[in-house]
């Protein structure tokens, strides 16, 4: 089993096999030669994963991002961002982090956020002298706040599996997400100051105003999407579809830059990108199913439980465990399988289960863009067309920044719990 579930996938990965084949071939070899599992489980799990309604945010936001790029909405947004904050050190980086936080908050989907950021902000980052690696790293890591700031599917699943208040998890996620974004912003500004690359674009009021007017329809998009969710017009998943629809209407009616054939080509391209990404989710689902029914994560947790750790050590162990598990299980399986096992251990050590939920969520958020497997990185690879190594190099400093944020979130519970106790 170690051969088919570990050695074969690692060998295929090293050979440069498609990531979905890494998972699928490992699962198939296990089913065909090692475990007495009925092979139809492949079909069942692939279908079960792909028919998950909440995943629709991915194709919808990919479509929206593709439309924004083709219709020029993205260019106008970037022009405005550069004209408006050109003198602030690291302005384009800050814009990316800000956009990632807002879009992530709206979509609740980390990969969907990477897709939208990649289509819109990557060219702007290059224009402001960021290297491709740095730009990609910034985009892949900024999007991780999507599942930390509500609405968040990860938190809904944690709430279901650990029997915790989803409303309180949502509230506790806000300061955690803002801390991550804040530390990322500090890092970006710090780097810019050290490099002295602050004043390359002078601020000219007339240019900024003109850029603003051109960008208004694009700037109203997050207002419309976020406002629609708050007002109850549509659900967070439906919001993705409305973002795409908004981009279609602006592209055709306002900017008049989108022809019918381009519209169809944008949709086709978004569908193909969705396939690229979601087939990995589906194949990882089959792999996770086998690990779960072989009780692999359960055994790992039993081992941690047997160590007799105190609260401080337990949280450290959980952080390490989750970063490791994030390489193997997809986040959905990780939460559903691990939280019923971990939460009782946490509460018996006096750890607040809401706090613990945020710690788990942030861990998984970081796992989405760290090597070897990270869906965000795969999306960045697909959208930006860069080699994976380049992206991983760019991601590294931000991974360190976010692990620092994770440490603060883990060992300073009032940050997440203070507001939940007020309401």
């Amino acid at each position: 089993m170690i051969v088919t579930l570990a050695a074969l996938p690692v060998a295929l990965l090293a050979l440069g096999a498609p990531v979905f084949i890494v998972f699928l071939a490992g699962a198939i070899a296990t089913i065909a030669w090692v475990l007495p599992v009925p092979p139809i489980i492949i079909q069942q799990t692939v279908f079960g994963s792909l028919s998950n309604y909440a995943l629709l945010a991915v194709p919808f936001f990919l479509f929206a991002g593709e439309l924004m790029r083709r219709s020029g909405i993205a260019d106008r947004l970037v022009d405005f961002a550069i004209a408006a904050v050109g003198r602030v050190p690291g302005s384009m980086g800050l814009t990316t982090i800000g956009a990632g936080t807002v879009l992530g908050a709206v979509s609740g989907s980390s990969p969907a956020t990477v897709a939208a950021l990649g289509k819109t902000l990557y060219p702007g980052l290059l224009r402001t002298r960021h290297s491709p690696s740095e730009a990609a790293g910034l985009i892949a890591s900024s999007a991780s706040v999507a599942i930390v700031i509500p609405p968040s599917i990860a938190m809904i699943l944690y709430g279901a599996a650990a029997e915790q208040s989803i409303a309180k998890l949502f509230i506790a996620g806000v300061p955690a997400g803002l801390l991550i974004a804040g530390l990322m912003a500090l890092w970006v500004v710090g780097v810019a100051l050290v490099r002295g690359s602050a004043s390359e674009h002078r601020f000219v009021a007339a240019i900024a105003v003109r850029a603003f007017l051109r960008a208004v329809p694009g700037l109203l998009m997050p207002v419309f999407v976020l406002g629609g969710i708050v007002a109850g017009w549509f659900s967070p998943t439906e919001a993705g579809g409305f973002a795409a629809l908004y981009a279609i209407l602006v592209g055709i009616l306002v900017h008049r830059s989108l022809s019918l054939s381009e519209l169809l080509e944008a949709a086709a391209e978004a569908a193909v990108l969705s396939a690229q990404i979601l087939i990995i989710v589906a194949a990882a689902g089959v792999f996770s199913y086998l690990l779960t029914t072989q009780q692999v994560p359960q055994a790992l947790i039993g081992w941690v439980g047997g160590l007799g750790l105190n609260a401080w050590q337990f949280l450290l162990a959980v952080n390490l465990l989750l970063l490791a598990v994030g390489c193997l299980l997809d986040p959905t399986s990780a939460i559903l399988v691990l939280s019923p096992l971990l939460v009782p251990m946490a509460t018996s050590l006096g750890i607040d289960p809401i706090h613990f939920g945020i710690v788990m969520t942030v861990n998984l958020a970081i796992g989405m863009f760290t090597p070897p497997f990270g869906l965000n990185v795969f999306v960045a690879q697909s959208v930006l067309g860069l080699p994976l190594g380049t992206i991983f190099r760019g991601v590294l400093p931000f991974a360190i920044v976010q692990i620092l944020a994770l440490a603060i979130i883990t060992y300073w519970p009032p940050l997440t719990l203070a507001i939940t106790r007020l309401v």
Partner: protein
Amino acid sequence: MSPRDMPIGGDILATLSAASHKLVRLLLGLVLLAMTLANALNAGARYLFGTQMRGTDELLAFSQVGIVMLGLAVVTAERRHLAVDLFPAKSPINALRRLVLSLVTFAATLYAAIQSYAFVERMAAFGSKSMGLGVPMVIPHALVFVGFALTAAVALATALADARALVSEESRR
């Protein structure tokens, strides 16, 4: 993808596969566009008029299965799969490596297609229907089979092209 990359020999076959490639992409685009409209109509009808287009959530979820599985074949044909690329672009074993990976992809998707077919057959005999739309579940499940089968066919074609490239590279040495 340019016609030169088209793996199957012969002008007619190449034209045919280029045409079907275009057609599938068009279909994918139309489906995603339709999904966008259905999503908006459903949410709009619920908010504005307090009515539901019953089963929209199922329709969207099943369509998602469809675009991913059909898209899988397109991604394979365009050789755009996400992968960890550790090998330098000029590695001498690249041609062989590509052939091996195409063959592994072919074998894995063929196995998945065969097992999917077994599942679809049982589902057809079992005959359960979806809760919202009441469609026979065999229909959305068949999309997985179709996707894997098409992808296996495409992967076989890319493997043949890889084999040809390998041979011509060997003969150049």
